[in-house]
């Protein structure tokens, strides 16, 4: 059996160095990363990368920084298992492997010129942060921007500093809610769906971008439809088990679609008749 090195293998990795690690919550850390050969990651908000810890494994993670940043990119990782826990143990200066970006991302060219309603549940804020930062960097290309964010408890609030900033901006409407409050919490209490009726949007002019845990989608979509949003202006990003990230391993298949290649972002119109999507 001959064995040869194939540089153009789609499984090849680029070496990347962790520049900085920041704890966001008890379970989530933000990693600032740059490629070793000083090339940049050319991506669109909503796309993901495959992150490798050699000897431990490889996982899909959304890119959560602004695509306009050419010096580094960021990922926000929740420790849930083998690879994610090992990532949490790394230090600035450590090297990881990266391939990608993969997936389709949010259709920015389509959204531009419209109002934007962002609905993030928990860790769903990670991919949406990339879209939010892009929209802020190109503020004049978008109309009204509404951001709704919900998580279980105040302790799980991601990007707390940035949220604080967004909520102070006069050109963004920001609302946040928690399922269960603690004594210090002064904001809304309740599911994220409870925020939707209250936002003042022109449904014909608005694109909604929704990312969150699987249970959230059905309820959020119901509210958005009640608001009169057209089915092709509701954008959803799905999470599925992913191994290859490029439409081969079959793990992320939703009926005839590969979540990794055709998605992870779909319009509600594309998937509304698909029993296995929601």
């Amino acid at each position, binding site marked *: *059996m*001959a*064995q*040869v*090195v*194939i*540089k*153009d*293998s*789609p*499984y*090849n*990795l680029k*070496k990347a160095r962790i520049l900085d690690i920041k704890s966001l919550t008890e379970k989530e850390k933000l990693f600032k990363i740059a490629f070793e050969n000083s090339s940049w990651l050319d991506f669109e908000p909503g796309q993901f990368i495959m992150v*490798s810890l*050699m*000897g*431990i*494994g*490889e996982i899909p993670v959304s890119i959560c920084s602004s695509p306009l940043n050419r010096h580094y990119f960021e990922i926000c990782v*929740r420790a*849930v*298992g083998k690879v*994610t826990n090992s990532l949490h143990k790394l230090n600035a200066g450590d*090297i990881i*492997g990266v391939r990608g970006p993969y997936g389709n991302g949010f259709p920015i060219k389509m959204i531009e010129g419209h109002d934007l309603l962002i609905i993030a549940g928990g860790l769903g804020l990670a991919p949406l942060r990339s879209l939010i930062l892009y929209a802020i960097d190109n503020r004049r290309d978008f109309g009204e921007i509404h951001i709704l964010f919900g998580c279980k408890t105040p302790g799980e609030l991601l990007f707390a500093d940035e949220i604080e900033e967004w909520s102070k901006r006069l050109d963004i409407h920001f609302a946040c809610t928690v399922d269960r409050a603690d004594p210090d919490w002064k904001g809304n209490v309740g599911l994220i769906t409870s925020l939707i009726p209250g936002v003042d949007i022109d449904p014909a002019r608005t694109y909604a971008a929704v990312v969150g*845990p*699987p249970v959230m989608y059905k309820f959020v979509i119901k509210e958005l439809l009640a608001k009169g949003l057209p089915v092709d202006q509701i954008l959803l990003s799905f*999470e*599925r*088990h992913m*191994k*290859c990230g*490029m*439409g*081969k*391993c*079959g*793990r992320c*298949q*939703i*009926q*005839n679609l590969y979540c990794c290649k055709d998605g992870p972002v779909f319009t509600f119109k594309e998937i509304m008749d698909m*029993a*296995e999507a929601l």
Partner: protein
Amino acid sequence: MKVEQYKILEKSKINDFINSLISFSKVAAPVYKGYNNYAFQEIKSADEVSLKYIPTIIPPKKYFMPQKETLLKFDVNEDLKIEPVVEYENLVLFGVHTCDIAGIKCLNMVLSDKPKDTGYLIRKKHITIIGLECNDYCDEYASCSFVGAHIPTTGYDLMFTELSDYFIVHIHSSKGSDIIEKTGLFKPAETVHIEELKALRNNKLKIFNNEVPTERRYLPDLFDRSFNASVWKELETKCLSCGNCTAVCPTCYCFDIKEEVDLTLKAGERYRVWFSCQLDPFAKVAGGIDFRRERSARQRHRFYRKFRYHIDRYGMIFCTGCGRCSRTCMAKINLKEVLTSLIKESEAKIWRKWL
């Protein structure tokens, strides 16, 4: 049928031909393993080959996409060293049935779709496929004519068809014609031989009749109507979720990616292994959510993956009618019976609409 593309080999010389192949290449062919089981394996002599065989336990897919395949080698000792690799060897596959050639074509479709699976393509380049046409059904599980895989079309280098006292051989590639020249055992075909081949194929149209009471072209429509069919619910109680049906299928390519490290824990390799949509962790995501928890949903996914989804994606049916899934299933879930039940259920629904 251009007569120049055909050669003749006397039946008595078939062993000489196989032995001659062995003299210049590694050769794998169907070998009898007992209890009506066959396997493709390396042969050292023509005597080991079974020219009459029912589909092997595992399809020749294993040579194109090995059960375990190294993707990367790494060494984190000094500076992290990462090398994507491919393993390949020159191999002649002798005696491949048309259903299995159809299976390789399916793999080809997926793995040469962008981004190209470079490792697979390199390995494939080094494999020569010598087909062997079936003149009759291998057994009652086969449904090769339903999916149109019973007559050779493309996807091979040479195709052997057994006629009266000789094989007629179709040359389909330069790799194939090189072999013809190297072995030096063949005679040019003449019009009578072509006529005999045509007669055989005409006869095949009669004996290979539809195994499932519908036609291939109605499949998309049938499956579009059957997502909520009670057939799937019935499979729920039968299926053991063992994954055998997918492990033996020539068109299943789903995989897992894993790693192995050496004793230093510093160096090792990342590899892929076959995996199955019938098994538990396949579609689970963080938080414990499983997008196909029920066996009915998993079996439905298997059937749709064969007969519907990939028509949208690749314009092809991903079933070759080899019958392996039905032959191997401990719960006796039979592909032809499932399709027949679907048709019956769907017809019943249509009639009800008319009444």
